[in-house]
């Protein structure tokens, strides 16, 4: 029956869409995690370098 075919097709599209969304979600999560880790590490490294090197010149300091 034509109605069953249409339902099947919609189901397949939805499934594919769901898979794509899941993959994209995974990618976004990985990227977000990467962004967090990368910027966090970058931030920590810049802060450490800043603390180690930046100091106002004052006698006795």
């Amino acid at each position: 029956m034509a109605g069953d075919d249409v339902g099947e097709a919609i189901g397949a599209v939805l499934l594919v869409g769901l898979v794509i969304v899941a993959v994209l979600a995974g990618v976004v999560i990985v990227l977000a995690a990467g962004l967090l880790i990368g910027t966090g590490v970058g931030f920590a490294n810049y802060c450490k370098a800043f603390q180690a090197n930046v100091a106002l010149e004052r006698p006795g300091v």
Partner: protein
Amino acid sequence: MSSAPAEDPAIRSYFFGKGYRDLGATISESWQRNLDSAKEFFDKAPGADDPEEIFQSGVWVAAGISTLIFGTVFFVVASTAHVVLLCFFFLLVYVGFTALWLLERCYLGIRSFFMACPHCHERSTIPEYFCDGCGAIHARLLPNSYGITSHLCQCGKKLPATFFLDRGRLQARCPTCHENIAREHVESRRIFVPIMGGPSSGKSAFLFGAVRQLVDHEASSLGFSAQLFDKRSEGAYRSVVGLLESGRPPEKTRDPIPRAFNLALHKNGRLAFLLYLYDPAGEAYQEADKLAAHGFHDYLSGMILIVDPFAIQAVRSRYAAELKRERSSLKPSELPIEDAVDRLLLTLEAEFGLSKRGRVKQPLAIVLNKVDAFDLDDVIGEPAVDRALAAWAGDRPADRDAVRNSVLRDQLVDWGEQALVSRIEGRFSNVRYFSCSALGRMPDGSGAEFTANAVLPPLLWIFGHADRNSFAGGTGGGGT
């Protein structure tokens, strides 16, 4: 304290020096740390051999890649922000000190404040200042890259870097001769008057006679109290006045490059004027290179040229017999006035920016001295002025100063000095003639006190050009 400063002992503003070294080091270290962090993540990945550890390896590798990518992005953003912040403060400080420096320059310019060294006569914007903590010499204690309003000495002492914050309280010295100088040599109204003339023309007697009258009488009538400014001026004054009181003329000036004789004029308890009077040895006018060292020509307020009438040939001839008798006491000057004027003009042209056809704008008082000799008083003294006034036929009442000026000028012409008069009036835009007796009488060995006569009007005429209101009531009148 006397050694020349190799470099400024102040600590440069962070935003003009160390800030950029710190920036470079921070960027370099931060980049290296990012690389080390990424390497650390990659090293933690156990490898792909064991399928169970593939996920774990993937996580560490992803962390390493994330650090490389996002860590670098953050590094670029943070470094840019650091550079921008540093440049912003650099500009802020730059604009700040430039604005304050300009304001100070304008204020000091309007008030005619600059450093005039009384010892070497060097002119400078500001002197060098000593740190009142460690004595280090700060050559440029101005709003600049070492600080906007103050400089921080390496000893930790904060020093005011502007006139507005009482920089003058610090001990100063001349950048050229390194002599210590008082605050008033920078921050006060000053009048600079050299007393010029050939040897034995009576410059020293004129100077100390005038100062004596100013200190004893005239200053108070002008509303001032006169005070010898420093020990050196006081010592010189006491010594010469002692000689004059005992009937001896001042000793010959030896120094062709004189130190300034400083007299302070106070009004209402505050310093109103600091006078700089210069008395070089007459020999300086015999050699142009000695005159070149008279740096005060760069900023003088006016000049007094003492003329010994007996340096004029016509006068020598007229009084030949008397001169033969009185030569030792009269000591006629041997330097022709034309030569002194010519050397002065040559020096002004060569060293002080006077153009070949330019005119000196500062007032020049030509003072015919020794009117006490023989009957000169009758020729160029007040009796001659009285006669001219009596013969005055003008519509308006005669001005005594103008009449005196005319009588003396005409007398110089009569004595054959037309060329000198023309040369002086051609090169000096404001000339007035005076006569005086710097000793008050002919030296006769009697031991009677010398009291100068008519020595103040030329000085007060020049002072009147510096400040008409303050000196208008003096015996010298207000000038032309």
